[in-house]
Structures are given as C-alpha cells and as structure tokens.
C-alpha cells in the first residue's frame, strides 16, 4: 500500500555488484601502499620504531606512546577495512564474471594477484600484532571474530601464496592499468610472490628451519627479484590526495615534526656513508647531526631529511631488489638456500643495488652509484669479511641502512637480529617495542576474543613477541 518505489536506495552511490571489480582492487592496492608508506603519527610510526627518524617537539611516538594517537587502531582499520575488505569484494565480483566474456585464465590471474597481496597484508598484520583475526575475519556475519595463532596464520598464508602462484598463466592479461604496481604483468607478480616467500622464509628460520629452507629453495627456484626494475613500486602522483603520504606530512603540513635520528646519523657518519647525501639535507654547516632519539630536538639545530622525501611523486615500495639480495644473504647464512659462503656475494649485490635504488652516485664527478658502492664496499667497516663479528650484525646494519624509507621492514630487521643497537628514549625509558599493542577499541568491540588473544600473546604489551621473534 505504499508508493515508495526505490526511494530507499541511495541515488549517489554505486549499488553492490555494479562497480567493476578492478576498481576495488585498485583502491585496495593504493590503501595498502599508503599505509605502508605513510609517516603520519596517526597511522604509521615504524620509521620511529626503527629509529631512522625522530620527532622534534612532540615526542610521544618516539617514546612509544601508542595511546595518544592509537596508531595500532588505524593500522588495523586500514589493513582490514580498507585493504582486505576491498580485495575480498573484488574477488567476489570476479568470481561472478561471465566466463564467456573474460577467459578463465584472466580471471585466475586476477584472483591470484589478489591472493598474493592478501598474503602480503596478513603477514604485515601478524608481524605487527602477533595473533590477529584471520579465519573469521572479513565476515560481517561474525562481528566477534576470534584471533588466530600467529604461526598458524603464517602457515596458512604460505599455502595461499603457493596456490596463487600455481593459478597464474604467464602471457595472459590480468588487471591491466588497474594494476597500479605492475600494470597487469603477471610474470612480475610471480617474482613478487617468490620474493615475499623468501622474506617469510627468513622470518621463520629460527622457529621452523626446515620449512624455511624448503620455502627459500622454492622461492629462488621460482625466480625472485633480480634488479631494481623488478621492485614492487607504487608510483604516486603530484596532487592531493594521490601524493606520496610522506609529502603530506613533511611538506604540505608546513610542520617540522621529523628529522633523522641520531641512531641513524651516527651510524652513517661513522661509515661516511655516501647515501647520506640522499637521505639528509645539508642544512647545517659541517657534519650531519641527528636529532636525539625520543627527546625534544629543535628542528633548527639538527640535520633535516633529504629532498627525495619532500617530493610528492616519490614511489611507495612494498619489496625491492636490494632487500631480496639481503634476504638471500641471510638465507645463505641460515643454510636455507645456498651456504654461508654465498652470503658475501648477495650482501655486495644488495649494497650495490641499494646505491642504485637510492641513486647515490656523485653528480659532481659523474660517478655512477654502482662505482660509489664498490668504493664503499672496500671500507673495512663495510666489507663483509671485516664489517662486524657476526653475520647478523653485518647484514642487519646494512639492511637497516638501506631500508631508510621503509620503517616496518627496518624495525623488523632489528627485531630479528638485535642490530643495530638502538637508543633508549629519555622520557619513557622504554626499549624498542616488539609489537604493536591491539587497537584501543578492540577491548570494547570484541572483548572476549581480545582477552584471549592478549593472554595468548603473553599480555597485550609492547614487550610481547611475535612467534618468530625468539631470543
């Protein structure tokens, strides 16, 4: 008896099923890159955890205060709600695609890429918090999802990664231009998946060496990144809101919140590292001086960040070639693939790759980055044979230096190897966190499961450890 018709359907929003699946995939990819790249104190403070950067005036985050801005909450929200949810919906829509119009191989390629990026996202979640919702996640019918064991999640996503690679048909298209990382090139995605697999293998080497060895061997056999051209790189644009998120915080904000930390500057100064010219600004006369990590450090008194961090179009990176070479060096030392004898070559490749990646040549003498890198490698403090007493320290320090713009991996490098040595911030006196605490609202929206997970983690504290983080 009513004449309401469809007036209760929002005329300004696309109905479910009416948006093309690649639009959701593309949106989720950008969210993932944004979240990993950002340096907002509300979203991503891993550059601070890694002590690459420090804060000038407001030092809450460098003192590991996770309450004031609830970064764990935002990180979690972004990854579940804005990344995984859209990947999942994209997959649902792809599964409804008419196979008369789209060949099954293309559909499988699309599904495989989604799966690979989901694996990436879940490993970030596990590495951030430990136990997280996985088997019951992304299901609105269950608003109280249980948290799965972190190691179990790893095992599951490693299988997912293998399955995804097996679905790919090289030579067939996938997402085309909506693939904002590789432009739809599925062979590049296979390399990405293998590189990710290698990363995961090295992560679990201490707790499951045999599995790690198998994975690393398979990954190398399947083909990992072999040059910086393979990098998983998200190219940002020049205008808001599509710029590199770092530009928003460093340039657009007009603020002076971040400077290189003394932890980083002191190490690079000691090595007279040529990459300093890229990482830092020469705003001070004389030497580079890093802000005192965790203490109030007036911006004017310390070295500033280099110009590459002030460009809106600087790409965001998920995995790059130098990291892969470092991983291969680690895998060699760990006897996962190859032997310790192979480590040095990978280490050298990694550092050369890093100089190329950072474009750390000398423009005045027109010396290319690779030549500068070779010179650098000849220093006793850098050369693999003499750099430090343990391989862990040699690799960790250099890997950490390379990862200057990727706080999450740099922090994880420290968690894995305990190097380089970190400073203790003055105000809190706390050591580097081993994990993020859970989001502030989880106790109120998912209380029982939160409590169970906290207990399983040994308490919802920054000192609790992810399963692969063993002493």
């Amino acid at each position, binding site marked *: *008896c*009513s004449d*309401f018709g469809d*007036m*209760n359907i*929002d005329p*300004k*929003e*696309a*109905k*479910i099923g009416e*948006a*093309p699946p690649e*639009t*959701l995939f*593309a*949106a989720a990819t*950008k969210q993932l890159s944004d979240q990993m790249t950002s340096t907002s104190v509300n979203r991503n403070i891993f550059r601070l955890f890694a002590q690459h950067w420090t804060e000038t*005036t407001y030092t*809450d985050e460098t*003192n590991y205060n996770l*309450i*004031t801005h609830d970064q764990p909450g935002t990180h979690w929200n972004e990854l*579940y*709600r804005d990344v*995984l*949810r859209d990947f*999942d*919906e994209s997959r649902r829509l792809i599964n409804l695609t008419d196979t008369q119009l789209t060949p099954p191989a293309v559909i499988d390629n699309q599904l495989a890429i989604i799966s690979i990026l989901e694996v990436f996202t879940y490993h970030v979640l596990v590495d951030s918090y430990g136990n*997280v919702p996985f088997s*019951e*996640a*992304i299901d*609105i*019918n*269950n*608003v*109280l*999802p249980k948290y799965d064991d972190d190691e179990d999640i790893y095992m599951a996503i490693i299988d997912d990664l293998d399955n995804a690679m097996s679905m790919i048909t090289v030579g067939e298209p996938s997402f085309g231009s909506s693939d*904002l990382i590789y432009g739809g090139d599925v062979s590049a995605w296979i390399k990405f998946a293998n590189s990710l697999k290698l990363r995961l293998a090295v992560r679990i080497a201490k707790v499951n060496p045999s599995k790690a060895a198998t994975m690393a061997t398979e990954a190398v056999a399947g083909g990992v990144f072999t040059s910086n051209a393979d990098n998983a790189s998200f190219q940002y644009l*020049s*205008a*808001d809101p599509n710029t590199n998120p770092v530009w928003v915080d460093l340039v657009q904000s*007009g*603020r*002076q919140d971040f400077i290189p930390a003394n932890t980083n500057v002191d190490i690079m100064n000691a090595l007279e590292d040529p990459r300093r010219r890229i990482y830092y600004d020469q705003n001070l006369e004389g030497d580079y001086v890093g802000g005192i990590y965790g*203490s*109030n450090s*007036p*911006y*004017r008194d310390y070295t500033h960040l280099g110009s590459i961090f002030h460009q809106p179009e600087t790409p965001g990176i998920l995995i790059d070639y130098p990291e892969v070479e470092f991983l291969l060096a680690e895998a060699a030392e760990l006897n996962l693939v190859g032997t310790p004898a192979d480590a040095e070559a990978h280490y050298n490749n990694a550092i050369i790759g890093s100089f190329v990646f950072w474009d750390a040549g000398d423009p005045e003498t027109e010396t290319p980055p690779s030549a500068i890198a070779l010179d650098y490698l000849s220093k006793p403090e850098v050369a693999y044979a003499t750099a430090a007493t343990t391989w862990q320290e040699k690799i960790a320090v250099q890997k950490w230096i390379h990862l200057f713009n990727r706080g999450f991996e740099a922090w994880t490098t420290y968690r894995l190897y305990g190097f380089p040595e970190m400073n203790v911030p003055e105000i809190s006196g706390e050591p580097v966190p081993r994990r993020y605490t859970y989001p*502030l*609202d*989880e*106790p*109120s*929206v998912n*209380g*029982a*499961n939160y409590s169970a997970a906290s207990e399983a983690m040994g308490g919802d504290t920054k000192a609790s450890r992810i399963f692969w983080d063993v002493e």
Partner: protein
Amino acid sequence: KTITGTVSDQDGLPLPGVNIVVQGTTNGTQTDFDGNYAISASEGQSLVFSYIGYKNETRAIGASTTINLQMSEDAQALDEVVVTALGIKREKKALGYATTNVGGDEVNTAKETNFVNSLSGKVAGLDIKKSNTLGGSSNIILRGYTSITGNNQPLFVIDGTPVSNISNASSASFDTTTSDQTQGRGGYDFGNAAMDINPEDIESINVLKGAAASNLYGYRAANGVIIITTKTGKRKKGLGFTVNSGVTLSNYDKDTFPKYQTEYGAGYGAYYSGPGGYFFEQDIDGDGLDDLTTVFTEDASFGAAFDPSLLVYQWDAFYPESPNYLQATPWAPGKNDFSHIFNTGVTLNNSISVSAGSDTGSFRLGYTNLDQTGIYPNSKLTRNSVDFNGSQDISEKLTVGVKATFTKTDGSGRNGTGYDGRNVAQSYRQWYQTNVDMAAQEKAYYDTGRNVSWNFGGDPLTQDGRKPIFLNNPYFVLFESYESDTRNRIFGNVNLTYKAKDWLTITGRTSLDTYSELQEGRIATGSVDVPEYSRFNRTFTELNYDLLFNYNFDLSEKLTLDGVVGSTARQQRIESIRAVTSGGLAVPKLYALGNSVNLLNPPTEYLGKLKDYGFFGNASFGYNNLLYLDISGRYDISSTLPEENNGFFYPAVSTSFVFSNLINADWLSFAKVRANYAEVGNSTNPYRVYDSYANPTNFTVPFFSVSNQKSNADFVNELTKSYEVGLETSFANKRFGFDLAYYSTQSTNQIYPVAVSRATGYHTLVVNSGQVDNKGIEASAFVSPIRTEDFEWAINGTWAKNESEVISLFTNPATGEEVTNLQMASLQGGISINATVGQPYGSIWGSNFTYIDGKKVIDPTTGRYVVDGTPQPIGDINPDWKGGITNRLTYKDLSFSFLIDVQKGGDVFSLDTWYGYATGIYDITAGTNELGNPKRDPVSEGGGILLEGVNPDGTPNTTRTSMGNYANALGYVRAPNALHVYDASYVKLREVTLSYQLPKKLVDNLPFNSISMSVVGRNLWIIDKNMPYSDPEAGLSSGNIQGYQSGAHPSQKEYGFNLKFQF
C-alpha cells in the same frame, strides 16, 4: 421562542465563540464576532453558557426573549488550556500526561538568540545545554537519552508545522551524529534549526514530555514535543502596533577562562641552549656573538623563569613593522594574556508588529531584526524574520488560515570548535607561550595584515623562516580565515477548517518547512594549514499534509466524548554538495573553487529522501469534569524501513482523575492524579537497507570501495514503551501547589549502526536490537509566600532526576553472543563515549588510576600515578539531577525575578587540561609546593609535587614527582585520562529580570496603549562549580556526543535592556 442576547467579558467587551446549549439537549449555538447569539428554546428551560477560561453560567429562560450576560474569568481554569498534539486545545485537567506550559514572556523578555536556552531551569525534565559559541546549537534532552545512536532531540511544532531541529553541522546526511564537528575534529557549530524561531513571535510554549502526550504525532515525537504557538491578531476592530527594541551586552566570564601561570615562559623543558637550556642562540645584532631568542617553535610554557633583567629577542623583534624590531626585550610574562582578544558582544534586537482584526478575520504581521556581534573580533550574526499569522472566515462554516515565517540568518566569523587551528581556543587552552603579549599580536596583525605569529619554525631573520609552524596569530585567524554562512528558511502552513456539523470539524493543512543554506570555509594564504576554500550547499524540504476530523459529543449530561481521526503524509528531502579546493589557493584572498592550485577533487554529493504516511485516531471520554479517559493509536508506514516490514501500529491510553471535585474543601483548590501507558514506534534514516560502494577520489583509474557501514535488509521499527503516573495539586486558592511525575520508558528494537571490530572489514553494522531504559521523577512546585493586592512574591521550583541504563545492545549473529559495549565516538586523547550494558547511556571510557582500597596508587620511584591503560568507564555524561528556582517579586507594575539553575553531577573530560597541564600554561603547573619551594625546581632541590595516594604496598606516597617539563605527572604524557574527568555540577544565577510597565494613567496621556521596559541579565554568576577554568556546560555541539571539551569557549555574562511600546 428565540432567545437573543449579547455575551461580554468582565470588561464589557463582546465575547465571540461562547458555547450556548439548551440544558439537557443537544441544541446549541455560539456567539458571533460581536458576542451576539440567537437560539430557540422554551420557557422553563435553561441556557448553559460556557467558554474556555471562564466560569460556566446557567440562566433560566423566563418571559424575556433577551438574555445578556457578562461572564467572569475562572481564575482556576484560566491558564489551564493547553495546546496538545496536532494543535488540539485541551483543558489541562483532562490530560493524563505531564505537560509544562511556558508563557511567551519567559522567552522574549530575557531574550536569547536561541530561545530554547531560556527554558533552562523552567521545565522539569528538560535538560538544556547551551553552547558558548556565537549562534551555536543547544542540546535539548527530555527525560533522558532513549535512542542509542539516533536523534534524541525533541520535535518542534510551530502552529501545527513540524519544524526540523537537526543540527546544522556541515554533515551531508540525515545522520548528523557522524559529523566531524560533533566529534571534536574541528569545524563550526552552525546551531540547530529551532533557533530560526524568533522569540519575539512566541505566544506560548507547551512541552509534551511523555510518549502518551506525543503518540498522535507519531514516531518523530518519540523524544517529546515542544509545541510553539505564535502570536496572532485578535478578532476585534482596529489596528494594533507593537514596537520592541532591545540591546544586550555580553562579556566573557573569567571563571570559565584559563588562569595562566605567570612565572615561566616558552619551552617544553631544558632542551635548548642559553641559560638553563631554555633559549635559542643566534647572532641577531650582527656583533658576531650569539644572542638569546625565544624558543619560537615551542607552543608550551615550560621554559625559563621570567626575569625582567634578562633581555631576549622575542617574536616581535623580527617583523620589520614592529616597534621592537631587532630589539631584545625583558623576559617577562605577556602584558596582556589571551583574554585581551575578547570584546564586549552587542546584540541589537528590534521588532515591529502590526495586528488587525475584523468580524471575520484577523492577522498579525511581525518583522524582527537581530544583529549580534560576538565576543571574538569579527564574529557576527544577523537574523531577519518576517512572520505572518492570519485567518479569515470564508463563510460561516469555512475558515482559512495562513501561517508563514521567513527567516534569513547570516553568520560570519562564527567561533571555530574542537581541535583545529580555526578555533583559537585550541591555542589559549592547550598550546601557548605565556610570554606572548596578546595586544602585541593584535598590533602585529593590524599593522601588517600578515600572519605574524609568535610560533614559527625557521630563521627569524627571514620572512620564510617566520612562517607560522603550529599556531597562527589568532587575529589573523579571526579576520582572514573566517567562515561565513547564510540560511534562508520558510516555514508555515495553509489550513482550511470546515465546521461540517456542530459536532464535527474538518481541518486540512499543508505545511512546509524548507531552507537552503551555504556554508563557506576559508583558510587564508600564509596560515599554518594549506590555504583552502570550501563550500557546502544544502537544501532541506519537508512537506506535511494533514487531514483531521475533530469530533465532540455529549453522550449524556455528564459524559462527553471528543477526539480526532486523521491521516498525515510527510515527505522529506535533503540535498547537499560539498566542494573544497585542492593544494592551496593560486591567488591569495580569492575564495572561489576555480582558484584551486590543483584540479578540484570531485565534490561530495548527498541526496536523501524519505516519505511516510500516518493514520491516527483518538477518543477522549470525560465524565462530569471528574474523570477522563483518552485512548489513541497510530499506524505509520515509512519508506526507510524494509518494504515487507514498513508499517507499524502503536497505542496509548491515559486517564486523569480530578479528585478535588469530590472533596469540597477551601484549602484544596485543585487536585488530580493522572496515569498513562503509551507506545511510540520509530522509523530510521534512509539508506540503511541496501549496501552500496563508496567512491574515493580517482587515481589514474577509477576507484570504488566497500562502504564502511554494513546495511541490514531485515529490520523492523523501533518501539518505545512508557508509563507514567502523576499528581497535580494546588492549595489555598492557588497559593501553593505542586506537580509530581514518575515515568519509566523502555526503548527497544533500536535501529542503529554499531561499531564492530574492523577485522570484520566494516566499521559499523546496522542492527535492530538493544534496549535503553529511562526512569525518573519530576517535580515542580510553586508558592506565593506573600500576596497582597499590590505585592506578590512567587516562587517556582523545578527538579528532575533521570536515570538511564543500557539494558542490552545486540547479539553477534554468528554465535548469539551478547555484545556489551558500543563505542559511539572515539575522541582525541584516547577517550571514547560509549553505550555500555549495565551503565547509564553515555559512559566516558579512558585510562584510569590504579587503586588499592580506593586509594590511588603512586609509583614510589617516580612519584607518578600508576596508570591502568586498559580503556574502562571513568565517567558518566548524565547529571544526577537538575533543578531551578525562580523568585518573582511583583509590586504594582514593577516586577523583579531571578532564576537559579542547578545541575548536580555528570562528568566532562577536558582535552584542554589534558594537554594544558603538559604545556605548563595553567596556574596549577607553577607556584610552590607543600614545602614552599617552586614546584618546577628539580625534585632533588626540593621542587616537584607530592601526589596524594599510596605506594603499591599501601603505605602513603612520600615521593615527590617532577614538574620541571612537559612530561610531568599531570599532563597527557603521564596522567591517566581519569585525572582530567571533572564533575560537571554547577549552580548558576541564570536569569535576572526587572520589568516595569508604565501605569495606565500615565500612558493614557500618551499615544500609546502600553509601554514596558525591562532590564535583564543572563548567566551573570556561576555561584558554584567544580570544573576549573571552564564552563561545565560547554561542549562541542548538540547531539549524543557529550561530556567532552576541546578548545572550549568561555561562557558569557549578558546584560540587556528592552523597551516595548504598544499603540
């Protein structure tokens, strides 16, 4: 034979509309405009004359065919006719529910820009929280919050036209609770729409409190109804003019402003260079030696102790126009603190109205101009309203009425709110240097027109280095980055009344409420934030079509039946569009979208539509002025519900028993008991049934994303059930009396989005369950201790206590598990406002102290509180009770009254002290400790403070803790949130009025009918409060997110003078 005659009132003026019935028959008539009547009756029969507000008169018919009659007012019944649902006038004694009537003079003598504020303390059960911003909204809650996340504000009805009172926050959709502004993330409080009602036009206000009272209005009245009757012309000959002129001055209340410490200047601690590490060093005068400069970057006052003998280059040494250019000045507290910024606000209120009446019609036309400048520079509000109210008889049976109000409101420089650079209170309450002289800041802006801030990040000797870093010059903010807004609104109705039979009147009414508004935001070039121009256009239209059949019968001599049957149809449409420049403004001061540096991002569009139909009826039985029974019901069909469940019915029954009519005692003037049971169904906002995708700004390819809210295709209407009992009495010829009410409501099946674990992939899920119970007691009483012919002292008091409890929320669809907490807002500082099962609605969660045996635990090594970081309930937004007492002294034509308004309990979290105690701006962060030593001295030298509490082993704390820098025990770095939760109790002298009406004999010599004048004061004195530095009433906006202050504005003392002429 035919009896004729004239009925007049006490003054001899003809009385139209008097009912005349031949006793014991249904034969009746009414007097015409001139008070004349004619009726056929036989000798020996009697005529009964009745008229509302007058004593019934009976006259036996004798030989004469003429009966003239002068009726006298019934003092007892005079003020007891009230307007109830759908505009039906009822005798108050017949009502089985609580209503409170407020005369128009209560809101148009001590005028508030938002008339609703004038009701505070005058209506038991009405909780009004006034915003302290210019033209800001008022939160209005009747008998507690009932809807978990939906609208809890009452419905406003003006002369039969429902008028929207949604918040004007720049929220695109129906769902105003999600607006950034209401959650403290910056913006402006544009007020709520009821403030478009001009107090000057109000004749009377009736507040319908319970579901039984509002049942006929349907679901929109679930939170009660405020019925406003506006002034109209009287059906008597001649023209009448009223001219009213008023001026109100307002000053900020020092008790609601920070008390700054004046011992230490800029800095966060000893982190820099110079003496003690409190300054920057730079060679300013070029002598090759470093000089001291202020730590310009630091927006805190944990720096060097003031020492006038120390010369420092301060911010005003660097802009070339400065009198102190390149001069070091003594290190001393700012000569003028931030309060220098306040002006005296001036409100001019001028109105003129004309009314006229004839035999067959009458009208009133009024025009009012309100012109207000606020206490902040460059803030102003003007409102022009034209109000027309008229009726005309087309024939003896048909009357047409028109009511129309046009209002144009223009705001400019409204006060920013929340944690945002456009709210200068963010600086003066949270981030500030006490060495800054605000008069010098003012001069710097006036002399240069630039954003010369005290807070910049670069080399002070370069223009670029003096670009503000965190905080702007506040004058630059107020004069350059101002908002402006305009709203044009028309509301009113056209109605036709047809007297079909003696017992049946048919009314048709079409009501319209429509407005269009434009809100423009600016961030000027040179500001801390990226320059910006934003515009938000919104149009709102609501149409209501009502058809009412009013009937009344005398079933027997003693039994009457009257009531209404009718239907209503409503259409509402909200359309909005918001566009913002991107990347800055190419040309400074050009505020146009085309001036965007980057390509514009797509504007945000919203189009919301809803429609519903209602069918209703009621029957009121009256027995011998003694016992009344009212039964009503309504059936609604709403477009926002799922199609298969979109209709719902709800009944109400109420009764009134006037037992004083059984007791014939002089001391008892009036007494009745009343009781009712009622249900009110409720619908929901549009677009909660079907899912859709959000449309983020495109990249190189289009983007879509799953909406953050999961819809629900399977829900039914909300339902509130309530019962109420009451007792109403007056004694000793109405010298004193009281009214008591007890009520209990259960609001069930609520339709609302709940925050869920984001691991579900969603932010919120629309559910259809949950229950909130409210119960409460309301009391009002009056007494006239002295009443003589010339003098009266009358006291009116109100008191109300409401207790709410969240009974249930929802169950997890997958497991059937109960969800016990719902986060309604997550706010800066780590605070959230929640609906928690077993707690009152609106519990404040955050980190807490750790307690042993009720004592706060102190860490014996640091002397600081041991913080329990797990979020938990630490406060409750609801007051324990509210009350008000009005004293009115009247001597002849002179009247003096004052109102004391009281709130007990309720909690507020202050983000202002949360940050401000860490930045060292408040007096509490300096001075001396219990040893008489400066608190800020190192603990090792006898400084620091000793917190009250115990060590973990239960022994009293003896460890003093440092107050030397921002990481002290009281500020946000170390303190639990609970330290910054304050008791919101207050006792306020809300209103003082002195009115004088010129004696008639004096006026008679003048060309006026009457002249009155009044002097009024509002919010003159906060007699008592527990919240430091602030008004506990101050909040962000109206809505469900209360109990939180961020960048709160001070309250204002208002002094007004008003003059009124009638001729």
